[in-house]
């Protein structure tokens, strides 16, 4: 999640315009921005290709080795069934040059073991009472900070904004919430069965899983212009057709989590279901869906978080001189940024944060704990 989120916003922030200030840093994001303004489709394809290559290299040289290396820190004496492997890591490990280059650091590490942190005569809380007092102090501090922030926001906003502006923002927030929920639901309906199907077939999983993870790591905003150009071409309703962009990148989290869930299902459990003639909807209801549920929830949480992020970019999109607007909080923030209306930017962000936190607390968290408690295969 974080990596693609990082790429996503790095590419966006390379070319940013707030009010009348335009900033363009050299990079693939600026390239895309210029290509959009020029309606240059080939240039956009070039950017996508370049990004694919970068992510591929990145994955092979950095992340794969890291994952394979981290496997040694699993707290488990048995060797894992399928150890993550990385050709790059093997190269690093066998390289004498790297050995030589890291020698001094090894020595430095050895010195560092004996460093003592400067002591201020404090000690860690050892008794219940101490930690309780610390907890209360901490929450009081948080409360005060929150109040102060609210006060500042109010002071900052109330000169130019009426209460009706808050109403507008919240109303638009509900629209975006609806959009996120509906699209996550649609993505779930499509990708859960597909994920189960793939996950139960090891050979298919080996092919599909890396592709899904790759797609999830890809900054999908590079693909937006392709979709937007079609919407402009066919003159479609932006309120509906811009929406899929929200889950364009994040739907893959649902897919690959469900695949992971289905592939960890013990063979004996599947044999048992088959042996007792459990088929069709009964099988989905009692066997497959419960087995992948904890994984699905993890995927859906990530996907919905990413979807809120994406809404800021997806609800307003341009192609050449045409700019499409969908109604929603993401568009509200985008537009306010474009016109340099800082008060509305702050208001929009505050409302969106509020929505995200509330949805997390009343929907995803309880669902997550429920799934962990009841459905986790141990």
């Amino acid at each position, binding site marked *: 999640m974080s990596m693609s989120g990082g790429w996503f916003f790095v590419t966006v922030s390379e070319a940013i315009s707030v009010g009348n200030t335009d900033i363009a840093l050299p990079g693939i994001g600026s390239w895309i921005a210029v290509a959009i303004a020029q309606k240059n489709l080939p240039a956009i394809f070039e950017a996508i290709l370049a990004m694919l290559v970068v992510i591929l290299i990145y994955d092979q040289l950095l992340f794969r080795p890291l994952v394979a290396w981290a496997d040694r820190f699993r707290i488990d004496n048995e060797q894992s069934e399928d150890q993550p492997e990385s050709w790059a890591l093997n190269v690093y490990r066998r390289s004498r040059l790297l050995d030589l280059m890291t020698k001094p650091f090894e020595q430095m590490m050895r010195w560092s073991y004996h460093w003592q942190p400067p002591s201020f005569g404090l000690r860690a809380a050892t008794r219940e009472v101490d930690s309780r007092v610390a907890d209360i102090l901490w929450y009081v501090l948080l409360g005060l900070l929150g109040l102060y922030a609210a006060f500042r926001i109010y002071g900052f906003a109330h000169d130019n904004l009426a209460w009706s502006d808050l109403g507008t923002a919240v109303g638009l927030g509900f629209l975006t919430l609806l959009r996120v929920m509906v699209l996550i639901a649609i993505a779930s309906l499509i990708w859960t069965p597909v994920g189960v199907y793939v996950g139960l077939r090891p050979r298919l999983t080996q092919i599909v899983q890396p592709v899904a993870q790759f797609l999830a790591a890809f900054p999908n905003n590079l693909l937006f212009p392709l979709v937007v150009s079609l919407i402009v071409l066919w003159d479609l309703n932006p309120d509906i057709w811009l929406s899929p962009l929200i889950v364009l990148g994040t739907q893959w989290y649902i897919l690959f989590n469900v695949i992971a869930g289905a592939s960890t299902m013990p063979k004996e459990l599947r*044999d*048992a*279901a*088959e*042996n*007792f*003639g459990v088929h069709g909807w*009964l099988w989905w209801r*009692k066997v497959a869906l419960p087995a992948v549920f904890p994984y699905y929830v993890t995927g859906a949480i990530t996907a919905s978080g990413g979807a809120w992020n994406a809404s800021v970019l997806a609800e307003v999109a341009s192609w050449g001189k045409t700019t499409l607007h969908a109604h929603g909080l993401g568009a509200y923030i985008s537009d306010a940024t474009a016109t340099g209306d800082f008060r509305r930017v702050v208001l929009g962000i505050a409302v969106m944060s509020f929505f995200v936190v509330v949805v997390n607390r009343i929907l995803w968290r309880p669902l997550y704990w429920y799934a962990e408690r009841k459905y986790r295969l141990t």
Partner: protein
Amino acid sequence: MAELLNVEHVRRTFPRGGGEELLVLDDVNLTLREGEIVGLLGRSGSGKSTLLRLIAGLSQPQGGNLSYMGTPIQGPVQGVAMVFQSFALFPWLTVLENVQLGLEALNLPPREMRERALAAIDLIGLDGYESAYPRELSGGMRQRVGFARAVVVHPNILLMDEPFSALDVLTAENLRTDLVELWGNGKLPIKGIILVTHNIEEAVLMCDRVLLFSSNPGRVASEIRIDLPQPRDRTSPAFEDYVDRIYVEMTARRVERMRQIQTQGTTSIAMPLVHVSPNQISGLVEALAAPPYNGKADLPDIAYEQELEVDELFPVAEAMQLLRLADVEGGDIKLTHMGKRFADGELNERKEIFSRSLMSNVPLPAHIRKVLDERASHNAPKTRFLDELEDHMAEDAAEEALKTVVSWARFAELFSYDDDAAMFSLENPT
């Protein structure tokens, strides 16, 4: 009596990398008649569980026929229910729901489902646990749920895949006797049972007939009828005779094969090596050297004394045979001269004996050592040997052989291995 199940000339292979095939079951024949408990006894890798899955219709054979009450088995059969080694309960369903699952699939009216499920729960001794989730139960109670779930569908054949091997000794015994008692009283709505096990005593305790499987590929090597009335007494001489007889049969074949390999003076590195640690070998050598055995023991006796199951004892005994630390003959194991010296020696002397024995009796480590000696850098990647082995044997067998050799060579200080880099080398870490 009526035949419930007929298995004729069944062959099962699994595809392996490179278009090759691994033969797991070869020309297996088996009949199950009404009122019988038939045991399939063999070491892991003898294809017993594979055969059970074929009978359940969970997979299809590449050759031969299986028929259930006269009709060919082409998919999961209603009337054949299975009990699994790892219980295979659905953790999100309660005991009652787990037991009912098979009935849901039969599309029965809810009233009847409930009544039948409760009756099965009652029969198997799970009363009071209906609303518990599997995670709240002990291993023994979980397996009882597994039994209840199988019994509730009133199958004609009950298949049991090492149902007691995941349980502790006392619980397993408790469950076995309960099951034999229910079966003897005719209270189980079942006509015949097939039990897969690698525990010889369990087979003698429960079965009317025992089929001994040989491994690689799995074949039925012989059949032994157990003519003892139930309930059986483990301490009776007749019982012990059966156990001894099975031990002799199982060791004779394997040792014969190994002796053949050795007398042929084979230099092939592609000898399958089962993973046994030097500690296990030392442990058994010591136990053999000490009283009451003084260098020679009856295999069932020493297995019992050392609390080793067949699956654990045989590989160790074979490794000792391979290293010429002991001789296995009939149902006996006897220390060789070198074995006695190993038993008397200090750690360093043991290492030396082990090292010399490896170099002269086991081709693979000798080969690796030679390659390392010849190379200027004194190291070689694991893949070099793995590829070489895979020309002659299956990938997992090659992996296991290498793993075994690494563990032996480390003890013998013959060469070292770096798992991170997957490299063999001569240098010992300083």
